[in-house]
């Protein structure tokens, strides 16, 4: 079995499958989780969070109407989500390949030494604080951290890896992969602009 798979299995060991999970081998009948049509749908999630997750590009005023709240209540909900550190901030989804001064981006697989008491956290936090690092995840499998970095040029990203990242004590190895082209970014397809609806304007 390849190394990464065995790592994944170890990480998942003892975990229960998520609710509603249907193994591929299951008979067809079990693929219908709603035996009876649910009379009322789950409405317990913060309504503003739900709209944010759906990414419907709604203004505050529209969100208020859709959620059946006042604009002030939408703001209150947003503030609560910020306080709870669920909502961290807004970022635009950009395709910088269309921009001459666009960034170079890379993913880096990093192996680090865990520490007594803190595990991977202290080093992960230290690495995350570099401005070049856009995202940083602890991973199961063949390496420990997966980090997404961006910089103005290939040289600047390479310099970050060789001069900063790999010289940190506890960083055992790095493996850098430069991104060549993006096909999908933050749920947006890069090459497929939204087409005007082809629905008939009136239909029975």
């Amino acid at each position, binding site marked *: 079995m390849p190394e990464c798979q065995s790592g994944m299995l170890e990480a998942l060991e003892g975990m229960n499958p998520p609710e509603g999970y249907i193994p591929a081998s299951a008979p067809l009948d079990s*693929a219908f989780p709603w035996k009876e*049509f649910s009379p009322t*749908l789950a409405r317990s999630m913060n309504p503003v969070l739900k709209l944010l997750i759906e990414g419907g590009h709604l203004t505050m005023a*529209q969100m208020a109407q859709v959620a059946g709240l006042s604009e002030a209540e939408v703001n209150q909900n947003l503030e609560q989500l910020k306080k709870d550190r669920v909502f961290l901030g807004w970022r635009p989804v950009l395709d910088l390949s269309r921009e001459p001064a666009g960034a170079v981006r890379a993913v880096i697989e990093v192996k680090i030494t865990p520490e007594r008491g803190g595990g991977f956290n202290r080093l992960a936090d230290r690495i995350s604080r570099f401005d070049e690092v856009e995202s940083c995840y602890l991973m199961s499998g063949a390496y420990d951290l997966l980090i997404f970095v961006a910089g103005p040029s290939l040289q600047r990203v390479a310099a970050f890896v060789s001069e900063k990242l790999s010289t940190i004590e506890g960083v055992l190895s790095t493996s850098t992969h430069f991104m060549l082209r993006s096909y999908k970014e933050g749920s947006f397809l890069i090459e497929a602009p939204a087409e005007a609806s082809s629905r008939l*304007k009136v239909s029975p």
Partner: protein
Amino acid sequence: MDTKRFIARQVVDLPKSGIRDFFEIVAKMKDVISLGIGEPDFDTPWHIREAAIYALEKGRTHYTSNLGLIELRRAISSYVAAHYGPEYSPEDEIIITVGVSESIDLALRALVNPGDKVMYHQPCYVSYHPSVVLAHGVGVPVRTTAADGFALNAEDLERAWEPGCKVLMINLPCNPTGGTCDRARLERIARFAVEKDLIVLSDEIYSELVYEGGHTSIAVFPGMRERTLFLHGFSKAFAMTGFRVAYACGPAELVEAMMKIHQYSILCAPILSQEAALEALRRGADDVKDMREHYLRRRDLIVRRLNEAGLSCRAPGGAFYAFPSVASTGLDDRDFAYGLLDQERVAVVPGRAFGPDGHGFIRASFATGYDQIVEACDRIERYTQKLRG
């Protein structure tokens, strides 16, 4: 030469769909927000479309059995048993058709002798009465009312019944009213059908889109399985309107009779659509759940806004249409809809397109994006305020 004289009489006599006239006008206008669309705004989920592409790549481009792919019929059999209750044999009690419209046409042609009477509730889907006429039957409409949530009542059926009635067509939840029937009412309708020895065509195309109380099929009541054709499809729940794929389940003799017509007129439903439908049943449950949740939220939004605009509108129990009364504006449904289109560029369908009992109402579909619904409701509110002076 007068070629018109060759056209069969019942086709000449058939009125053009009211929706068609309205469509012609809307199609020529720009910047219209349309609440007049009777299909989901969601694209078919990608995994379903991808299954059709895969089938095409694999050269699955031949005829299927007249009844349809046996794998699909098996999946339908399981789906119907799990969700609705009745069990149908995939071998001879299920036929795949080109939309529920074809199922209705087949069923009526298979059942109706010239002059036989077919009961149906009104307001109803635009094709019901024409389908009866084209099968040389006689339509017997049964009124449903806003005061009653456009539910169908056994008492109204009793009143409308006349000797010679053979078939009862029901569509619950209903397009255009969103009307549904609770179990108790439906049971009384079932008893009526047994007592009057009627065959029931139950068009349950919107049954996954029920927002309160759950859905019951009339086929589950005592004595009903043998006299019900359960009609369902993929268009609404799985957002697959353009695939044109649906099915009818019922006693083998009736399915066989429908199949006789189907094999000579259609041969089989398109195989790519059948492959896509199979994928929908296997892995589409979450899609249905997600879309239904959106429709529910949109329903609450549009019903609230229409009432705020002064149009009396109850929350529909199912489907994705609000069917408010425009009586408070002093206009009839046609003038209201044309005025709204002309002055505010919002398209809704005049209720009369769905039968005489639709007079005074409009159908506003909420199968459209939140931002469009909000903007359309702003415009409707402006329009009704102007009307009231």
